């Protein structure tokens, strides 16, 4: 497995990022929860999460994430504008993507990678719209969803981060991304939190 060595506090960040997209599946709930819990209250860059979830359970997930989060998490509506300082979660049974003009777009298309929402759709459309002003983070999970998306983010010049596989409950997802493309940073949950704090310094 290819591994990029981590040099702390040398991320070479700036304050032009338009969005952070986070993908996760089995074993990522605790990680996401912790990240949200430690996020600065005035964090600026919009965060958009695509997490595999039950298709027929529409309510409860966003509420569960909100319990521990410093910031309110919302499920975006179709055509809603992506706004600074907001945190979004892909709704159940819809794919969540982006359109030029920085709006959300939803779809009920067939499942991808056996998933709806599929991380690849969120990541690929994000890479198309935000290009090099995008950060992609892929967490623990039991399938290959997100690997193609990470590749595209990387091709467009965005930053790619995967959760340290040895820390993942199930490492199939980050491992697939590492195999598919060169990943900028392989980080533990605590390091991801630190990364986001360092990013935050560029915006205050």
């Amino acid at each position: 497995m290819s591994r990029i060595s981590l040099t702390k506090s040398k991320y070479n960040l700036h304050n032009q990022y338009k969005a952070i997209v986070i993908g996760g599946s089995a074993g990522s709930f605790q990680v996401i929860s912790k990240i949200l819990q430690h996020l600065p209250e005035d964090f600026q860059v919009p965060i958009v999460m695509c997490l595999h979830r039950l298709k027929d359970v529409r309510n409860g997930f966003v509420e569960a994430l909100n319990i521990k989060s410093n910031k309110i998490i919302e499920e975006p509506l179709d055509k809603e504008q992506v706004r600074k300082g907001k945190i979004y979660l892909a709704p159940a049974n819809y794919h969540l993507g982006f359109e030029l003009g920085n709006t959300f777009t939803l779809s009920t298309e067939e499942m991808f990678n056996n998933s709806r929402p599929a991380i690849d759709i969120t990541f690929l459309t994000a890479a198309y719209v935000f290009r090099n002003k995008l950060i992609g983070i892929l967490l623990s999970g039991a399938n290959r969803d997100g690997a193609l998306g990470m590749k595209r983010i990387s091709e467009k010049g965005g930053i790619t981060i995967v959760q340290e596989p040895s820390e993942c409950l199930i490492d199939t997802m980050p491992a697939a991304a590492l195999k598919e493309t060169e990943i900028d940073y392989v980080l533990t949950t605590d390091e991801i939190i630190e990364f986001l704090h360092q990013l935050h310094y560029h915006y205050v």
Partner: protein
Amino acid sequence: MKLAKQFFEFRKKPCIFIQIFGISTQKTMLQEEIEISELRLITDLIKQKYNYDFSNYAMSSFKRRVARVLELYKMDSVNTLLRRLDIDAKFFKEFLAEITVNVTEMFRDPTCWVELRNQIIPNIRQNNQKFSIWHAGCSSGEEVYSMAILLEEMGILDDVRIVATDIDHVILDKAREARYHIKNMEINKKNYNSFGGKFSLEKYYKEENGKAVMDKNLVRNVEYKEHNLVTGSTFAKFDLILCRNVMIYFNQTLQNQVLKLFHESLHRYAYLVIGSKESLIWCELANKFIVVNNEEKIYKKIRD
């Protein structure tokens, strides 16, 4: 963690569709980036040649649908697709069937159907014993059957005239046939039970060769017809229009236009139901409607 278990799906099995049909549309279809200029060439050709207008479809999903067609028909480029569309009218019909999204369920979002049964339809009934419903973009017809079952269980099926329309006549034939994969009935049954149906969903279909064959008697008052929301016009006035998860495939310009069509097709104080994650707030005619139920996205026309 209980919460995590409750909300996450743990998937390990490969996609059944791929296993059966051997089509791996998933990987390659997303790898190539199709340019907007190429999409424009496709929509221009279709408009000119077949009089279907996709130019105001939402770009991101339309692009994926085109990529999907390239993959399904093993075409190496958009140019190949353009040539085929130009010379092969029969292929265009297949293209139309593939480009439109036909993923649907019976009683999708059961809470919406509960609201229809407990609030909306009784409200309509207060003023009109007999009334009419339009399913705009009915796809393979699951929603039409959901409505028919709901009305049947309320004992008012024969008081209601239903029109079900779709842009694609191939899918309309499927809606008329109403033979659904038995494996799809699992989620349909689950939804029906969450909706609180009076019986068991099995009451309404017979199993035949792995298909659930719906009881046609339920749709005795349903008229299926081809209608294009983009180029079509008003053909009747309704007390209730359902158009759920259809307008998400349109851009704002087209949404405005289609809402205008719905506005003209609704009686005053009649209802419009859209998908649970859609909204009319960005539409030009939004002020002609009020929100009756924001969670289920049920609107009422209040101004002509």
